[in-house]
C-alpha cells in the first residue's frame, strides 16, 4: 500500500467515525413537557428577589399565592388561591384573608396563615428589587409586625391609606406575593438572611411543581407535586433548557425533541407556519415601545410639536414590515388586557398634518438627537422614524449606545428624544399609570428617575390627582372609567408617543394544549398543559 493509500484509508475511517449514524429520539414522553427558552436572565428563584421573566415563569409554577390568576382565563382577574376568601374593612385599609384548609407545602408542612405572614413580612424586610410592589402600601421593616398579622387561619394586612382593593390584590398576584414554607426556609437560614441564599437556588412552595434543579444558563427542571391542592398536573416533569439561538430552537421543535420553543424570531415563526406537527401560539404581552420627547427642550415642549410628532410615525408600515407580527399598534400606556386599558389608537402617519402643526407652532429646521439602545428592532424603528420625520422637515440624528449609556443619558434628561421600551411590574393599571402619568415633583433636584414622566421633565400636575384617585377607587367599574379618562388626556397631551405593544409568538408541537405564557399580566403556567 502506498503512502497515499495508507493515509487516505486512515482519513476516510476518521471521517466515517465522525459522522456515524446514531438514531436520535424524536418524541418527548407523553408526561413530560420540554421547553427551549433563553433562561440566562434568571438571577434568583427567591420570590422576594426574583424579578426577571424566566425566573417569574419558574416561580409561577412552584409557589402559590393568596390570590392568583386562572391560567385558562385571565380575563376573570384575580381569583382565590391559598386564600379562599377575603373581607375588606369599612375604612378600606385592611383586608382579612381566610386561608384555605388542608393545603400542604411540597415539604409536607401545612400551609398556614403564619407562613403567609412571614413571607410578606420577609419580602419587606429583605427589601430586594421587587419589594416596592409591597412597600408602596406603606409597609416598612419597622411596621410589618403591626401591618401584616396572622391570627389562626386568618391573615390581615393593613395599608397606610385606603387603596382600591383590586390594586392591592393585583399586586399580591405578583411573584413577591408567593407564600413560602417558613419552616423549610428558616431551617436553611444563614447569618439572618431569612433563607435568602438557600431560596435563591432552591424552592419551598406549595404550587403544582417543585424545583428539582436550576443550572444557570443550562436548564431548569421541575417535578409535579402530587399533593398540589388543585390537582396534580398532567405533565409530571417539565424541563426548560437554555437554547439561545432561534434557529436551534426551531430545529429542535421540528425534530420533536422539544414541545415548546419560546424565542423564535419572525423568520422562524414564518418558517414553521406551514410545517407539519407544529403550530404558532400568540399572546399579547405587556411590553410597550414608545418615543419620549424631552420637555426641557424649548421646542419639543410645545403642545403643538408634541402632537405633530404623533403624526410622524409610520405605525402601520413598521407593524406590517420588519416588526412582522411581533408587535401590534397600541397608543395607550395601559397594555391591552390590563384593567381599564383603552383600545383607542387615533394616530397614524400624516406628514401633511404634522407639517401644519409644526408650522402653527412656528417651528422650522428642527434638528434633534434620539438615543437608541443597540438592538436591531429598535434601530430599525428609529431609522423609520428618522425617515418619516425628515419628510415633515425634522432632522433626526440617531445615537446608538449600550443600555447603560442610553439609560444614563435618559435618566439625566440629556437626550432630546429616546426610543424606549417599558414592561409593567405587576398586573395592575397603577404600575404604568404611576410612572407614565404621575410625577410628584418635576424639579431636576428631585431625581425622580423611577417616574418616566420625570425622566422626560414632564409636569403632570393635572394628571396626578386623577391617578391618585384611580388608585384608591374601590368600585371596579368606576376605576375602569377613571383610567379610560386618564388615558385619553394622556394621549392628547403627553410627550410620550406610544407606538406598539408586544406580541409573543411561541412555536408548539401541535399536541400541546392549554399552554400559556401568562399574557400581559402573569407568567408562563404549565399546570394545565396536556399532550
Amino acid at each position, binding site marked *: 500500500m502506498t*503512502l*497515499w493509500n495508507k*493515509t487516505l484509508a*486512515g*482519513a476516510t475511517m*476518521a*471521517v466515517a467515525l*465522525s*459522522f*456515524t*449514524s*446514531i*438514531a*436520535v*429520539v424524536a418524541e*418527548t*414522553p407523553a408526561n413530560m413537557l*420540554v421547553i427551549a427558552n433563553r433562561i*440566562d*436572565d*434568571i*438571577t*434568583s428563584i427567591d420570590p422576594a428577589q426574583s*424579578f426577571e421573566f424566566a425566573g417569574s415563569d419558574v416561580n409561577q409554577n412552584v409557589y402559590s399565592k393568596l390570590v392568583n390568576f386562572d391560567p385558562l382565563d385571565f380575563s376573570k382577574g384575580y381569583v382565590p388561591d391559598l386564600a379562599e376568601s377575603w373581607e375588606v374593612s369599612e375604612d378600606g385599609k385592611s383586608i382579612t384573608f381566610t386561608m384555605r384548609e388542608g393545603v400542604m407545602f411540597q415539604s409536607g408542612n401545612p400551609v398556614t396563615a403564619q407562613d403567609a405572614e412571614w413571607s410578606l413580612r420577609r419580602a419587606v424586610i429583605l*427589601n*430586594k*428589587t421587587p*419589594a*416596592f410592589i409591597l412597600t408602596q402600601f406603606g409597609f416598612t421593616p419597622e411596621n410589618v409586625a403591626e401591618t401584616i398579622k396572622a391570627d389562626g387561619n386568618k391573615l390581615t394586612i393593613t395599608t397606610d391609606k385606603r387603596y382600591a382593593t383590586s390594586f392591592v390584590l393585583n399586586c399580591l398576584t405578583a411573584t413577591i406575593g408567593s407564600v413560602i414554607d417558613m419552616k423549610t426556609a428558616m431551617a436553611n437560614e444563614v447569618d439572618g438572611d431569612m433563607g435568602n*441564599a438557600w431560596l*435563591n*437556588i432552591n424552592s419551598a412552595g406549595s404550587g403544582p411543581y417543585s424545583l428539582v*434543579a436550576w*443550572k*444557570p*444558563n*443550562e*436548564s431548569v*427542571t421541575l417535578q409535579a407535586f402530587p399533593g398540589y391542592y388543585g390537582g396534580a398536573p398532567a405533565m409530571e416533569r417539565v*424541563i426548560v*433548557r*437554555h*437554547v*439561545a*439561538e432561534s*434557529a*436551534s430552537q426551531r*430545529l*429542535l421543535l*421540528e*425534530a420533536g*425533541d*422539544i414541545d415548546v420553543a419560546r424565542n423564535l424570531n419572525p423568520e422562524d415563526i414564518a418558517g414553521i407556519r406551514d410545517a407539519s406537527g407544529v403550530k404558532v401560539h400568540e399572546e399579547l404581552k405587556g411590553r410597550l415601545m414608545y418615543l419620549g420627547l424631552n420637555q426641557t427642550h424649548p421646542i419639543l415642549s410645545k403642545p403643538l410639536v408634541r402632537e405633530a410628532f404623533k403624526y410622524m410615525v409610520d405605525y402601520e408600515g413598521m407593524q406590517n414590515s420588519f416588526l412582522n407580527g411581533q408587535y401590534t399598534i397600541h397608543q395607550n400606556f395601559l397594555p391591552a388586557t390590563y384593567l381599564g386599558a383603552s383600545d383607542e389608537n387615533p394616530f397614524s402617519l400624516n406628514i401633511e398634518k404634522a407639517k401644519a402643526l409644526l408650522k402653527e407652532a412656528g417651528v422650522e429646521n428642527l434638528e434633534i438627537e434620539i438615543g437608541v439602545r443597540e438592538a436591531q428592532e429598535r434601530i430599525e424603528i428609529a431609522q423609520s422614524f428618522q425617515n418619516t420625520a425628515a419628510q415633515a422637515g425634522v432632522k433626526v440624528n440617531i445615537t446608538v449606545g*449600550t443600555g*447603560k*449609556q442610553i*439609560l444614563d443619558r435618559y435618566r439625566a434628561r440629556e437626550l432630546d428624544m429616546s426610543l424606549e421600551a417599558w414592561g409593567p*411590574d405587576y398586573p395592575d393599571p397603577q404600575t404604568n399609570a404611576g410612572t407614565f402619568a404621575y410625577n410628584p415633583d418635576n424639579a431636576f433636584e428631585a*431625581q425622580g428617575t*423611577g417616574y418616566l414622566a420625570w425622566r422626560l421633565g414632564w409636569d403632570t400636575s393635572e394628571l396626578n390627582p386623577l391617578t391618585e384617585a384611580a388608585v384608591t377607587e374601590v368600585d371596579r367599574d368606576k376605576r375602569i372609567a377613571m383610567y379610560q379618562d386618564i388615558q385619553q388626556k394622556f394621549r392628547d397631551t403627553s410627550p410620550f408617543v406610544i407606538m406598539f405593544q408586544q406580541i409573543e409568538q411561541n412555536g408548539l408541537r401541535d399536541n400541546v394544549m392549554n399552554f400559556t405564557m401568562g399574557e400581559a399580566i402573569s407568567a408562563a403556567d404549565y399546570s394545565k398543559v396536556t399532550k
Partner: protein
Amino acid sequence: MSDAETTGGAPSRAPLPRWITGTLKTIGSIAVTMLGLVFITFVIGRVMPIDPVLAIVGERASKSTYDAVYLQLGLDKPVIVQFLYYVWDVMRGDFGMSLLNARPVAEDIARVFPATLELATLGVFFGIVLGVPLGVIAAVRKGSWVDQIARVVALVGYSMPIFWLGLMGLLIFYGKLGWVGGPGRVSIFYEGLVPNVTGMILVDSILDRNWMVLKNAFSHIVLPASLLGYYSLAYISRMTRSFMLEQLSAEYITTARVKGMSEWDVVWKHAFRNIRVQLITVIALSYAGLLEGSVLTEIIFSWPGIGSYITTALLSADMNAVLGGTVVVGLVFILLNIFADLLYKVFDPRAR
C-alpha cells in the same frame, strides 16, 4: 596552610541543580503572567461602560437599594484596594460570587469548563488525525490535485463563518438526516442519568458503564466537535504542509533518497520526525484556542461551556464571573505552553 587558604577564601555554595532553577523560573514566569492577566482584566472590567450595580438591582430600583448594593460590592473602596482584595482572593482559589446568580464563580467554572474541555479535546483530536496527514500529503504531492484540494479545504475552513457552518450542519445532519443529536450535551431524557464525576459526560458515562448515555452523548458531541476539528484541521494542515516542504527540500532528504530509502521512510522517519517540535507548538496553540471557548459553536449547539459562560457574564455585567473565567482561560494557556515546552524536551535533545 589552612584549608581555607588552599581553596582561596570561604567555601562557595554548590549551584542549584538545573531542574530546580528551571522550575523556579517557570513558577516565577507563571506568577508574573497571571498577575499581569488579572490586572489587565480587572482594569478592563472597571472601564467598561456597564454598571454591575444596575445589573443586579435593575433600572427601576430606588436609590437606597442601589446604594446598599454599591457598598455591598465594595465599589466605594479605591480601585487599587479592590484589586488587591481580588488578587488575594484569587490566590486562595476564590473568584467571588457571581453577581447575578449568587453562586460561587469557582463552582460555575467547575461546571462549565469540563464541557468545553471535552468538546475541545475531541475537536483537536479530529484536527490532528485529519490535518496532519492532509498537510503531509499536500507537501509530498506539492502542486498536484491533492495539494489543491487540501488548499481549498483549508481556505474554506478559514473563511466560512462558523455560525453558518454550524447551523447548516445541524440542519442537514440533525434536522434532515437525523444522524446526530441536536443542541445540548445529551437528549433531555438522558440528563442526570450518570453521576457527575468529572463533568465530562463521555467520561462519566464510561465510568458508570452506561453505554446508552455514552452513545447519546457521542451523537450530540460529534457535530460540534467535527466543526471545531475542521477549523483546527485547516490551521494544522497548512502549517504541516509548510514545515514539511522546508524539510523535504533539505539535503539530508536527497541523501536518504539517493541511498535508496523507501519514500515512506523518507517522509515519516526523517522529514516528519524533524517537524514534530514545530507541530507541537501549532497543536498546542490550536488546542488552547478551542479551550478558550468557541462562543458561537457553544451558542448554536447550546453547549454550556466556558465561552458562552464568559460571554453571558460580560453581557450581564457580571464582572466576577468574567474575571474568574478569564483567569482560568489564561491559566490553561500557560499550562499548555509549559506542557508544550516539556514535549520539546522529549522530542528534541537540544532542548534538554
